[in-house]
């Protein structure tokens, strides 16, 4: 990691001017989040992936033929579901969690200036802005009509919820460029190192977000003088 950072640091201090280029844009797309949590002994409790959306504003600076850095601001949903079937009952909860995040990427790009592939790795930090839970209990009854109860809840619990999130992120993408505009297509994977819950008690199961995003976007480039 240190070598990688050093490499980018040196590169950014001594940019190759003919390649140095700024790029700003917006992108959006679906995301797929699942909760990584240690509840394996409860065999009938199932956490499943759920879909959301991500909208990002990006700013990138390429300082050599292959190296660059990028950042941005993302509004992203990291949703998941939890269900459990027991007795004559099924309990279901759908979590819709919205975060505002700032990723910082170290980019490595290759290919032509018109069609350029980029692989990136870095970290992100974010703030959990909205928490919504929709729950439903269905009791299957042998003779009467099935009984359904539900709720919607959106409050945070200051003791329980850790609203700061930070983690690692990696992505693969491709820019299709017709100067000064580029179309971006890419996928990314983010793993939250922080837990969704604060460390308010002894011995609980961790809860980490794990998110794949697929984004497409449009960006405007400036700077550099080599095609």
């Amino acid at each position: 990691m240190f070598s990688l950072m050093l490499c980018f640091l040196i590169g950014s201090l001594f940019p190759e001017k003919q390649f140095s280029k700024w790029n700003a844009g917006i992108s959006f797309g679906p995301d797929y989040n699942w909760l990584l949590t240690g509840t394996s002994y409860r065999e009938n409790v199932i956490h499943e992936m759920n879909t959301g959306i991500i909208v990002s504003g990006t700013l990138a600076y390429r300082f050599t033929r292959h190296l660059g850095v990028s950042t941005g601001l993302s509004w992203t949903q990291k949703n998941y579901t939890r269900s459990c079937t027991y007795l004559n009952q099924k309990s279901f909860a759908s979590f819709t969690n919205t975060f505002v995040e700032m990723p910082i990427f170290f980019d490595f790009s290759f290919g032509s200036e018109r069609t350029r592939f980029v692989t990136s790795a870095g970290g992100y930090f974010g703030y959990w802005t909205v928490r919504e839970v929709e729950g439903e209990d269905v009791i299957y009854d042998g003779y009467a009509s099935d009984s359904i109860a539900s709720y919607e809840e959106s409050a945070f619990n200051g003791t329980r919820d850790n609203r700061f999130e930070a983690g690692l992120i990696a992505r693969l993408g491709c820019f299709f460029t017709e100067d000064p505009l580029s179309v971006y297509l890419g996928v990314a994977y983010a793993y939250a190192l922080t837990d969704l819950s604060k460390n308010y008690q002894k011995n609980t199961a961790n809860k980490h977000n794990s998110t794949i995003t697929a984004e497409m976007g449009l960006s405007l480039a400036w700077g550099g003088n080599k095609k």
Partner: protein
Amino acid sequence: MKKTASIIAILLLSLCSCSLHEVKAPSSYTDGTWKGLFEGFWNGMNSNYLFWDIDSPTNEWDTVYDTYIDKFAALGTIAGSSTETNETAFSYFYDITNKLCDSHYSLVFKPSSEYLYYLSPSAYRYAKKYFPGFTEEQLFSIAKTPGFGLALLQIATADGYAAVAKSIFGFDLINTDGTKEMFYTNEGVLSGYDVSGLNSCFSSWSVLSLPGGKLNLVIAGITKENTEKGIPAGCLYYLGSDFLFTTVKNENDATKTAAVDSFIQTLKKYEATDGLTGMVVDLRGNVGGDPLDVQLLFSDMLSKDRVLAYHKSKIGEGRLDYSGLFAETVKAPASPAATALAEKPIAVLINRMTVSMGEIATDFFSGFEKSVTIGETSYGAFGSWNDDSSVPSGCFKVGDYLKVTTPYEQTYLSDGKNYEGKGIEPDIPVPYDNDQFTAGTDGRLLKAFQYVKDNK
């Protein structure tokens, strides 16, 4: 470039290498030591118990761990422990649990085949309230008595359903042969039972009793005037040992189902009878049951849907991982037949052993305009529990040594408030008079009929 790519690859791999802390099954901690037993108990409570928002508002449960882990460790191994060691361990569990608010909570602790201890915080609360003469030492001494411990003090309910039926209506659950058989009767002669008392109090009546502890006794009837007992004419009276109609019907026993259905049909006919002056719902000693019973028995009184109660459950392993509040609704039928009764005076009788669904039903009747609760504060146990191992919270075991019974749902009454450990206070408190009751005069029941008479 190769070096950079390698570093990126290492970075990507590191994303997948972070390990998660697992919550383990309580029994997995058992290693034959007292320390392992405590670890299993503490962790089972940590993830399964539902009332931490009340019982551990500032992390008291973590303090319990820090306080007791070394104490249990000092006791060594469980096998071959002396009576003194068993009692020391018991005293730790007693101190840890007897302030918990959950009134369904019980801990059965069996350190060896010779010893079985039963701990119940609600029994402790009950003893403190109704047996104020006992010192803490005396209570502990009763609690550590192998068997039912402090729960022994609440077994006999003075004016419970069976006592009311016998003392006031002259109807003994035990038939003249000294046995109790399954029976159901609708306005008829009940072979082997003396029903003259019922005939003297009701113009029409129906009795249901099943073997096996469920629906032990349910009586419904329309009163006729009995001045000696202070009973006015034309009042619907309902007495129930529990609310287990739904449970019995789900057992798919054709004989029992037929008996239950016949009783419900008759009750509904009574509810829809023209000219009723009011209703007395006698839930003294009612031990609870299934919320769906209210739908089955009393939904014809509703002209629109009504929230019966709310419940919340766990949606994670953390102590505060709660769901929101689920509303449990009683649905009004398309053509309700007993809305006239809903506008009449309704008196609900409760006592210290009106428990769980008995208390939720009390709250349901309180939603009618001219209703009143009479008697004494109810037990204060509102959760739903089931010890089936598939239920993801609530009851758990730690090996063969320890079993905890506790709800998987915490219940709030229709006002959205939590009465766990507190109970419902009656609108009109009426103290129990044992001499009067055993002589055949039930002051609480008299007050209920008087209320109906005065407000019709």
